């Protein structure tokens, strides 16, 4: 019986949601490695255009545990291009069955500088003004931060609805900062046509996400917080490759007016075979 329970894995990227900030309860399939680049393009008021790039290595350690490494950098017009640090995150599904609402626990360690502009989450009183500091100044600020998220996610018929509650703490000083992300998405067509195609509706997932800060333990208020609304679109180019796009719009005075995001993901199957120490190991 044990032999039949090993490597019971379906590989594909088709199920992934095109969210850039919100997490659903989808985890990486065990043994698979997904490499994704996420870029953010924006121009803050009284600042220069910038492009930030996060390269994400996501590995399915178990069906209930996904671990990820982010390498971050950015380039700012009339300034410089800098590497801004790394993030290591882990997501765990504590409940092994499917429920109407599925919780996932998220734990992250960040070692980044103040020059990071990826905006992979918004917490506390994060504001547009943080993005106009010259790189030479902002990169001297080193942040060692811990971040916790409670991810709640539901698949209702063809829809995914996800809610994230974020708590982030600079490990050296500063208060706990809080934030949220909400997302809803569904494929444009529910059934497979049965033919290989690239532009057909079943290859696209559309939705919208919203995210923002909720203040911190020193000032638990929405005053001077940033909030965004962002339509999202995902396009499954092949069984292994996915392209995502999202224009985001700031909805408060402290938000960046517009953020454009592009993501490109490629999934490598069965990477665990390179690391498996013995045959028949149960994952």
């Amino acid at each position, binding site marked *: *019986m044990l032999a*039949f329970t090993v490597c019971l894995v379906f590989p594909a990227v088709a199920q992934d949601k095109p969210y850039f900030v919100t997490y659903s309860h989808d985890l990486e399939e065990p043994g698979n490695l997904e490499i994704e680049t996420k870029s953010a393009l924006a121009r803050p008021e009284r600042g220069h255009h910038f492009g930030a790039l996060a390269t994400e290595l996501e590995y399915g350690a178990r*069906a*209930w545990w996904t671990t990820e490494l982010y390498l971050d950098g950015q380039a700012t017009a009339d300034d410089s291009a800098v590497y801004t640090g790394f993030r290591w995150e882990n997501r765990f599904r504590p409940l092994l069955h499917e429920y109407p609402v599925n919780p996932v626990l998220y734990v992250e360690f960040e070692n980044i500088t103040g020059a990071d502009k990826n905006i992979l989450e918004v917490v506390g009183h994060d504001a547009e003004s943080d993005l106009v500091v010259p790189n030479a100044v902002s990169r001297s600020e080193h942040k060692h931060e811990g971040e916790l998220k409670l991810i709640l996610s539901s698949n209702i018929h*063809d829809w995914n609805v996800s809610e994230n509650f974020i708590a982030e703490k600079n490990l050296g000083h500063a208060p706990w900062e809080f934030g949220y992300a909400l997302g809803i998405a569904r*494929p444009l067509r529910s059934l497979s046509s*049965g033919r290989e195609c690239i532009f057909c509706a079943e290859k696209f997932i559309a939705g919208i996400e919203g995210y923002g800060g909720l203040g911190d333990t020193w000032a638990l208020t929405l005053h001077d917080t940033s909030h965004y609304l962002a339509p999202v679109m995902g396009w499954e180019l092949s069984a292994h490759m996915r392209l995502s796009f999202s224009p985001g719009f700031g909805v408060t005075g402290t938000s960046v007016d517009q953020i454009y995001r592009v993501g490109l993901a490629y999934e490598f199957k069965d990477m665990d075979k390179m690391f498996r120490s013995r045959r028949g190991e149960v994952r």
Partner: protein
Amino acid sequence: MKPVFASWDGVTSHWESVPSRDHARQNPLGGKPEAVAGGSLLYRNHCQQCHGADARGDGQKKPSLHTESVRSATDGDLEWFLRQGDLRHGMPSWSSLPQGQRWQIIAYLRSLP
């Protein structure tokens, strides 16, 4: 409810875990050629790596779907299992696939000789 079963193997009693409402469900796409064609493509993209192109596994780690357990399951049992997965033993939940696509996969599995 009893513990969820481990796999699609030969133990038929594990379908007792399926709620009666799900157990009784019938595939709304069952027997439709276009559903089988769609299910075939979905199977190739999502399932083939671990169950093999002919769904017979490899006799060792890759589980066959040509088992008495699968044959004896109702469409509702299979849809429930695809939705639930078996994370403890490496089978992801496919609740994130549209429900229609899960039915298409089941229609394809039923069409296998």
